[in-house]
């Protein structure tokens, strides 16, 4: 199972979606084709914005760090932040903004608690480099890595409710010891109280 499939499963048919850091628009195109979910992507990179336009995906070239003030409260069923959380400087305000403009948020990120990452630090003595984290420490867009435990602690702090969680490794769901054995975490959260 891929991240794309997981997210598509969580998006109800026809839902309005906002994909933050949407890259070339692959996810939005997939959601439109499989779930008839219309939406917009936000992307800052020129080349990726051009790919979105080529893919006939609605794209808005804006900096996520500037917030989501162009979007009205509750204007999306689902706001997606796919493998972008770790590249954001200020996560807290962005997560709050996501749940201001959307009823639910889907957040995925590479799990820094994955055992290979731990071993590279603990035994190799260097920052992890892997399929999910392909960058050298001095040449990476990522600024804030976290683990499943860290992210869930942040959700608790912000009063966000975790509705679902899928943890993957090489496209396979991880059931046991996910913070150790999973390389990619995908959460569905809402701001609604329990």
């Amino acid at each position, binding site marked *: 199972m891929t991240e794309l499939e997981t997210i598509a499963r969580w998006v109800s048919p026809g839902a*309005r979606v906002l994909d933050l850091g949407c890259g070339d628009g692959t996810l939005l195109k997939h959601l439109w084709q499989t779930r008839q979910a219309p939406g*917009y992507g936000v992307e800052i990179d*020129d080349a990726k*914005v*051009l790919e*979105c*336009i*080529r893919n*006939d995906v*609605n*794209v*808005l*070239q*804006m900096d996520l760090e500037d917030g989501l003030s*162009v*979007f*009205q409260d509750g*204007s999306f069923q689902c706001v997606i932040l796919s493998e972008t959380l770790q590249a954001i400087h200020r996560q807290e305000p962005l997560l709050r903004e996501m749940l201001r403009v959307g009823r639910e948020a889907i957040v995925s990120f590479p799990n820094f608690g994955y055992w290979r990452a731990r071993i590279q630090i603990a035994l190799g003595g260097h920052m992890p480099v892997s399929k999910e984290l392909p960058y050298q420490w001095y040449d990476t867009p990522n600024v804030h890595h976290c683990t499943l435990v860290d992210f869930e602690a942040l959700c608790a702090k912000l009063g966000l409710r975790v509705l679902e969680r899928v943890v993957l490794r090489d496209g396979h769901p991880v059931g046991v010891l996910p913070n150790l054995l999973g390389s990619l975490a995908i959460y569905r959260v809402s701001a609604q109280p329990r």
Partner: protein
Amino acid sequence: MIVTPQKARFSEPLKLTGGAVLPEFEIAYETYGELNAARSNAVLVCHALNASHHVAGSYADDPENLGWWDNMVGPGKPLDTNRFFVIGNNYIGSCFGSTGPTSTNPATGKPWGADFPVVTVEDWVAAQARLADHLGIERFAAVMGGSLGAMQALQWALSHPQRVRHSIVIAATPRLSAQNIAFNEVARQAIMTDPDFHGGHYYEKGVVPRRGLRIARMIGHITYLSDDAMMEKFGRVLRRVTPGFDFDVDFEIESYLRHQGDKFSSYFDANTYLRITKALDYYDPAADFGGDLSAAFARAQADFLVVSFTSDWRFASSRSRQIVRALLDNRRVLSYLEIDAPQGHDAFLLDDARYFGALRAYFGNIAL
């Protein structure tokens, strides 16, 4: 590409926003490419302040005279005339062929001059709709423009929601700021206080308020370039070996502005300039909706592409984002590009790989 300007005449009176009525009028236009059998590939290109219907190509008898958006429009260009039927038009009140202050007033047999009414963006669109009817185009694949042309592209989506499939809005603003209006007013004052202006009746005196036009154009040019672009282009380079300690041209930028002013004042009509700047000042589609731009756009049905340039301080990106927000509120199909180009407002006329690449891709996805 060799092109031929044409004119369409409309004898049905046109009631203008300001209350006046144009008893009859002509629109100068050019077309590029072929209208397909389904009549689904027409694109209307709207021009900004000093341009005309001559959008692309050149004339058989004047091969040097390239259209003002020739880099954008033509065979194989981003707006590809092998695929689209493109129409360049000159708005009414202009001085390049469509009915304007220099045209003959049928009531007097003399040039309209100062008596030509003030026209608005809405009036231009109403006149362009007549041209569309004349050409047998029920619905445009796209209406496109930059700056003042972008206001027309926006207004098309509001005045004739059913007739526009895509509105392409480049370097735009939903309304002028006080600062924008201030610059326009200084330009108008320069013209109107020129002793050769004669209250707008200078044609019959055989003079032209050139000094006023020159200054108006110089002011305009300052707002078209970013501070950085101007510094990059001219710096503090001197035109003479040492400063003269007099008031002749010392710096390159002075020479540039004087040259632009001279050139402009040799071909542009002062009464037209006054009216175009007024059309800019008045444009505010939100005005009838208590300033609520989202409510103004509720009737739009087109898909939108909005493009701004980060160094444009005349119509800054923040103004385009106001348009984007209003369109999002109405759930329009929409893409927005914020091009990090250094040239300022003029960037919309310049070839930039990101900007042109996006336009090419966007047009490529318009189904015919």
